[in-house]
């Protein structure tokens, strides 16, 4: 049986990149699919031209080419990422972390109930949080660019999600402020203080997970999701 040569496999990777598949994990699956299909044609007639068969098989993906596959894969990986965030967040409802959460809610409520001075302290803490979030976003963006270079084209989709989802979650830093204007007008002040303290604590937990915990566990998680990393000669 005629098999694809190493050069032809390289050509298939190049072909997927030319058709806007940037991530190595998605490329790898498509390369094997195209290669298997071409080899099946060769079983019947080994003299058929490689490039002609490649175009024939690519057409089977429909008018949008590989874009449906990439899009769905992106959604699947984002879903996986949010499951990881949820799993980490649930840890904050268990001992011992729940003690810190309860203390944070109490502290912020207490400060807000002190009115002026307390409010200035809380606002200062939130400004510091915004600075930290922007600092981490810029840092992760740099890492993301470096990774792309280091991996020499073998950049995995989940790694991209890990390093870039912060932008979406980072936006939540604004949320306590947005809620502030709504809650302050609609709730009696003592309830508002508790609700606002809850929101601040929630945004702190979220940022801690997205910018600290998950980036620290990134490599371990990537190896679990992508068993091929062990087979790679990176």
């Amino acid at each position, binding site marked *: 049986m005629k098999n694809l040569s*190493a050069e032809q496999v390289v050509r298939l990777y190049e072909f997927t990149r030319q058709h806007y598949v940037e991530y190595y994990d998605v490329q*790898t699956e498509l390369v*094997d*699919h195209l290669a298997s299909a071409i080899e099946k044609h060769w079983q019947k007639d080994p003299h058929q031209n490689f490039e002609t068969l490649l175009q024939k098989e690519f057409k089977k*993906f429909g008018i949008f080419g590989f874009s*449906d*596959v990439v899009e769905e894969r992106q959604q699947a990986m984002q879903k996986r990422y949010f499951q990881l965030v949820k799993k980490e967040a649930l840890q904050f409802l268990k001992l011992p972390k729940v003690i810190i959460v309860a203390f944070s809610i109490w502290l912020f409520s207490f400060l807000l109930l002190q009115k002026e001075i307390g409010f200035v302290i809380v606002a200062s803490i939130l400004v510091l949080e915004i600075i930290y979030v922007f600092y981490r976003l810029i840092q992760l963006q740099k890492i993301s660019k470096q990774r792309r270079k280091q991996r020499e084209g073998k950049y995995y989709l989940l790694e991209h999600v890990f390093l870039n989802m912060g932008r979406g979650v980072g936006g939540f830093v604004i949320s306590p402020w947005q809620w502030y204007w709504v809650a302050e007008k609609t709730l009696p002040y003592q309830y508002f203080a508790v609700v606002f303290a809850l929101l601040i604590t929630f945004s702190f937990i979220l940022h801690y997970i997205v910018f600290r915990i998950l980036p620290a566990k990134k490599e371990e998680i990537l190896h679990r999701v992508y068993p091929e990393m062990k087979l790679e000669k990176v």
Partner: protein
Amino acid sequence: MSNSKLYKGSLSTIILKLLAETHKMYGYEITQKVKELTQGELTITEGALYPALHKLEANGFLEVEMQRVDNRLRKYYKLTQAGNQEKVSRIEELERFIETIQGIVNPKPSLG
């Protein structure tokens, strides 16, 4: 084949069923297996197969295993325990659906 709209909702069920019968399969193998089982009556399009596989994987119904085959990597899909349970309920659902459709397309003559 114009039946793609008909099987679209059942694609995940078909994948789960095939994987339950065969220990592990890769994408191209699944398309070929369906073709073979249905004597070419049903063709799973590539553009539909991979999104369905990735969705099932993200939901925790499938796990993957990588193997080096010749000079490339191959991604095999396997059912997880949750996938096995999901397969059972989806097949029951599909069977009920087929019965319902049969009742509409081919109604049994009533005795009364």
